[in-house]
């Protein structure tokens, strides 16, 4: 993000007061959640006790951090309506798939993390690769969230970077060390409502300014690439693929099926929230309930970006270097009076802190259960691992501050590293889905497929024109988002192919060991808790998912 000195906001005491109140609530939640922590399962998975609506909102709020708000409003300013695909083709179908198909395995097998599922299904080879790459990625992303937070405070309020870095880190550290996952999740839910309270009025004012949605469309059509900005298909400006048919395939298969399914179904930051639910049905409903607000999030994130592209000269495509990353900030400066300003700043800080806390709470669980307990010492009492988790939280926060300072010097490197870790998800999804539905897949195939798929994805990205920035060498003529979609897609296909070839002559695990891990070897009763209890349709995962799917299809058609 470029530092724009002209973005300084005129915050008064009311604004600061509103921000201060938010911090009191955040810390209060941490202190109260402390009381409910009496075992490691309480600390790392909220004792598997939360209602589905709480974990459902946490599920999307954990993702509604800096990367999402800054990144998706920037995409809105650069590409317009095709950005909606990230939500309506990407996230929502993937969340429904997680809830209906995959969550029963994660919850029913009683594993405590996604890597642990990997270990139970395929043994330690695949597990170690998965656990370490996940832990490293979380530290990195926590640092990015922290950096973006401190950067925004510097731009908007003029505080030095290091001051807000340390204050924000100390607050996140306090509540996650005290209350564990419960504190993180409760704060995520709270954050979601504050960010809506900030961005919804902003969007309404913005729309009023441009004359409603039709006025916005008229303005966008004045740009040379205006036609691409007002309709979602074929999205050639987003993919960078000129051929319309290939562009659509790239979006549906690359962004939708491979990248988004990979992210939402195997990323433990997300899955951990659903795992904290109080029953198998609640864990299934968590991502499905989350899909309802998720499909409307782009209206308060992407649309403001699009509005900024027509109302803010610095963000407009006619500017020499459009400052799209600050689109939302410019709009806040232009439209919001004191008072609302405080809510908006509190909302942004809340989102970035909650995003960082989500990364750290997922990190400390994988570190404690999957690395420390599995490979270092497994013979201690349960309380010992809660303590390990707390120490890991402190260490992770310190590392995140370091990462944030590094990011402030080398912003681009951080962006590309993040893209790089994105390539780990697609093969992971391939390995999981094959392992869940094909009992003959062997442990060797587990790690060989995963490594082959990941190496392939990264190789394609390196060979492309710019998927990994300066690290790409341009042998294959693919650029922009399209390159990322192709890299992920090829990794996915190769992972499946190699896993099948390696499994066929090999010896699969004993069928008795695969109960609750593989579909055909799991008695249906394991996935259903109460027999014969009548529940209304909105508590039945499949029916609720059906309603969500219908709604998101309507949205897709409306913005065709």
């Amino acid at each position: 993000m470029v530092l724009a000195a002209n973005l300084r906001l005129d915050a008064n005491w009311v604004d600061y007061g509103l921000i201060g109140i938010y911090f009191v609530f955040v810390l209060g939640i941490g202190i109260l959640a402390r009381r409910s922590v009496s075992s490691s399962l309480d600390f790392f998975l909220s004792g598997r006790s939360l209602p589905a609506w709480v974990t459902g909102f946490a599920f999307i709020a954990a993702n509604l951090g800096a990367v999402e708000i800054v990144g998706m409003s920037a995409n809105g300013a650069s590409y317009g309506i095709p950005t909606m695909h990230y939500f309506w083709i990407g996230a929502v179908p993937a969340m429904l798939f997680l809830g209906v198909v995959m969550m029963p395995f994660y919850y029913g097998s009683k594993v405590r993390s996604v890597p642990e599922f990997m270990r139970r299904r395929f043994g330690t080879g695949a597990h170690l690769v998965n656990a370490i790459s996940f832990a490293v990625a979380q530290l990195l992303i926590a640092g990015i969230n922290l950096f973006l937070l401190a950067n925004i405070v510097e731009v908007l309020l003029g505080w030095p970077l290091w001051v807000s870095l340390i204050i924000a880190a100390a607050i996140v550290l306090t509540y996650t060390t005290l209350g564990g996952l419960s504190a993180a999740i409760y704060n995520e839910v709270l954050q979601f409502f504050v960010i809506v309270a900030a961005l919804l009025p902003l969007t309404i004012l913005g729309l009023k300014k441009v004359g409603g949605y039709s006025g916005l469309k008229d303005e966008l059509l004045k740009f040379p690439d205006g036609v691409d900005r007002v309709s979602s298909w074929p999205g050639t400006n987003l993919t960078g693929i000129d051929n319309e048919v290939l562009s659509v395939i790239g979006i549906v298969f690359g962004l939708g099926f491979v990248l988004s399914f990979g992210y939402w179904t195997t990323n433990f930051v997300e899955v951990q929230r659903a795992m904290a639910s109080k029953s198998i049905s609640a864990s299934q409903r968590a991502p499905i309930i989350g899909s309802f607000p998720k499909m409307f999030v782009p209206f308060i994130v992407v649309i403001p970006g699009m509005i900024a592209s027509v109302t803010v000269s610095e963000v407009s495509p006619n500017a020499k270097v459009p400052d799209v990353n600050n689109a939302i900030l410019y709009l806040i400066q232009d439209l919001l009076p004191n008072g609302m300003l405080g809510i908006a700043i509190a909302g942004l800080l809340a989102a970035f802190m909650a995003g960082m806390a989500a990364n750290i709470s997922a990190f400390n669980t994988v570190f404690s259960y999957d690395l420390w307990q599995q490979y270092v010492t497994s013979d201690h009492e349960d309380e010992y691992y809660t303590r390990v988790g707390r120490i890991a939280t402190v260490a992770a926060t310190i590392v995140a501050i370091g990462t944030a300072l590094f990011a402030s010097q080398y912003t681009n490197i951080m962006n590309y590293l993040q893209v790089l870790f994105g390539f780990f998800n697609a093969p992971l999804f391939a390995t999981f889905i094959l392992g869940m539905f094909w009992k003959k897949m062997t442990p060797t195939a587990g790690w060989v497929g995963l490594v082959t798929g990941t190496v392939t994805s990264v190789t394609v990205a390196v060979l492309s024109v710019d998927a990994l920035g300066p690290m790409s060498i341009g042998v294959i003529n693919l650029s922009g988002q399209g390159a990322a979609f192709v890299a992920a897609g090829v990794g996915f296909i190769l992972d499946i192919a190699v896993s099948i070839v390696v499994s066929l002559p090999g010896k699969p695990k004993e069928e008795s060991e695969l109960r609750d891990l593989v579909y055909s070897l799991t008695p249906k009763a394991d996935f259903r808790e109460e027999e014969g209890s009548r529940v209304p349709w909105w508590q039945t995962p499949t029916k609720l998912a059906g309603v969500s799917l219908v709604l998101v299809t309507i949205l897709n058609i409306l913005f065709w």
Partner: protein
Amino acid sequence: MSESNTPQAAHSEPREERRHRAGAFDIRNFIAALLGVYGIVLLIDGLVGTSDAEIAKAQGINVNLWTGIALIIASSLFATWARLRPVIVPERHDRD
């Protein structure tokens, strides 16, 4: 999206005296409190603190006032929901 937080059997179960309301730490009360405080501050600010220039900047809308009202409504919805369907949690009996 509303969902019963009360276990089905809670009302008829003999163990009921071992359960208590999670009143102090129901996240809905927290959400209601924060949105309520925000709503009241914005409402007052909208009534007495927002200048004409600020209203003009916000496209002629007194956005503090209206957001304040909306937040107060949202706050009372959460408070009502928490009141009507309280969370029943089992007493902790181990290692407390």
